[in-house]
């Protein structure tokens, strides 16, 4: 089903053949970059909600700094959560790569073998990496267990806390109010929500590093793929 095209790419000293596969459809790419922007916004504003900036001078009526910071946080939170819902929808209607984030094939033996291979590649124990059209098993596992679970966790705890402000009977309270007693009390949810931020920031660091590293060292394109949607392969060798 993947559109394929071959193009000859003139390298520095040798002619390298590249095969391209269309992997990430437009909605997936758009979602990726919107979510990235949301995470940056949410982390900065969220950090400042817990540890606010130095006191503003002047009258209270002339300032609304915390209000703006909180507004930005809530807006970005809405965008992130709705984007996540849209992304889940796209997993159903998009191409089969769109499902990789949500369905990890842990029942397949081959997947486990490749996972170990990928681990060995990162530990410098393998000389050559494998080729992947979609995610490699390690990347897929990290995407699911850190990003997907993390984003859902942050959305649920986030809207539970948001519901405290919008008040009893509001949609956020009706849908997510049960989360607060589940964790103990409001302050516990705040603590977990903040730990969740650090968890996702840890993911972002590793994600960005490995995307750049793989773009350079693996046998396929990564960063340009998330921009244009096409996966380029740097060699013609099988696997």
């Amino acid at each position, binding site marked *: 089903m993947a559109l394929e095209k071959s193009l000859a790419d003139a390298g520095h000293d040798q002619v390298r053949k590249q095969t391209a596969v269309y992997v990430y459809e437009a909605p997936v790419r758009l979602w990726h970059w919107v979510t990235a922007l949301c995470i940056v916004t949410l982390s900065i504003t969220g950090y400042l909600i817990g540890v*606010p900036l130095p006191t*503003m001078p002047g009258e209270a009526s002339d300032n609304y700094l915390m209000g703006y910071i909180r507004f930005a946080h809530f807006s970005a939170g809405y965008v992130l959560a709705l984007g996540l819902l849209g992304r889940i929808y796209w997993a159903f209607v998009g191409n089969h790569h769109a499902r990789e984030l949500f369905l990890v094939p842990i029942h397949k033996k081959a997947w486990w073998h490749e996972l170990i291979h990928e681990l060995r590649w990162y530990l410098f124990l393998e000389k050559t990496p494998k080729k992947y059209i979609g995610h490699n098993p390690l990347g897929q596992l990290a995407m699911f267990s850190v990003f997907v679970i993390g984003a859902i966790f942050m959305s649920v705890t986030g809207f539970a806390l948001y519901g405290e402000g919008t*008040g009893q009977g509001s949609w956020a309270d009706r849908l997510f109010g049960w989360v607060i007693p589940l964790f*103990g*009390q409001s*302050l516990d949810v*705040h603590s977990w929500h903040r730990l969740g931020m*650090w968890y996702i920031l840890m993911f972002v660091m590793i994600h960005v*590093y490995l995307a750049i590293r793989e773009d350079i060292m693996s046998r396929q394109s990564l960063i340009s793929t998330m921009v244009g949607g096409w996966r380029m392969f740097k060699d013609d060798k099988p696997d």
Partner: protein
Amino acid sequence: MSQIETFYEVMRRQGITRRSFLKFCSLTAAALGLGPAFVPRIANAMETKPRTPVLWIHGLECTCCSESFIRSAHPLVKDVVLSMISLDYDDTLMAAAGHQAEASLEQTMQKYKGEYILAVEGNPPLNEDGMFCIVGGKPFLDQLKHAAKDAKAVIAWGSCASWGCVQAARPNPTQAVPIHKVITDKPIIKVPGCPPIAEVMTGVITYMLTFGKLPELDRQGRPKMFYGQRIHDKCYRRPHFDAGQFVEHWDDEGARKGYCLYKAGCKGPTSYNACSTVRWNGGVSFPIQSGHGCIGCSEDGFWDKGSFYSRLSNIPQFGIEKNADDIGLAVTGGVGAAIAAHAAVSAIKRMQDKGEQA
């Protein structure tokens, strides 16, 4: 005493005029968040309903709930509520003592089986078969179970009965537990706070007696009318929070100007209570108004949530005095160092491979 008097009869007997009585009804309606249409309903209920017997028992506690209750500054409540309800047993307030007191408990339980309200101040320790709290020669745990058996409803006074409070704080050597861990088959109204506000206590009782039903409770069993909002939602210093104006130090300009105490660890944004609306001591003040942050005394496990002076609470699994940011910075710092090391090794490997190829 063959017939129990109504509230109204008791009030009149105590020399309270009908005018004062109706004023009390209006004030009560307002305090409960009800409209003027409810005033005649309250008046009617108090004129016609017999007083409901209340048994007030004390477990592990400091009696601050009782101290608060008897200081209810609502003018008539102070004089009347103690006579209004038929407080048949309260070992710290009643005149009787010893066997006489315990006998009155039994008497009420038999006479008003399934009709009386059990008010519990404090909580039972479970360790050593409840030997850490003895009332009338028996463990309080037994008294609590015994008295709750035939009660119509149970009121959990204060944070002890509702959540466990200080005696249930880590490491909780006596295994003190909130009463809902022991009483599982009765409706429990939690009125948390250390202590709860006097007017909230009398308000809850008045509501139950006048309407003959429990007030509407939230998910955690607290009356919505008093615990429906956070201190922060109605705090008079809220505009300074939204403006980003905080008390940074106790003696700074912001403290003198009455800025928001958020950075000084105020737990108002996470505490459900009526302090910022009802206030204390007859509406004189409340902690934030007096210049100190809320410590969140009406919230579950507030003793174990880290410093009263920090917004980020301690996470004990990671050692003493570690909060989410300490943990997060350590983890992301470690990850950052690992990435740097990995990138360095990758670069060296790549140069080696290039060298081999060439």
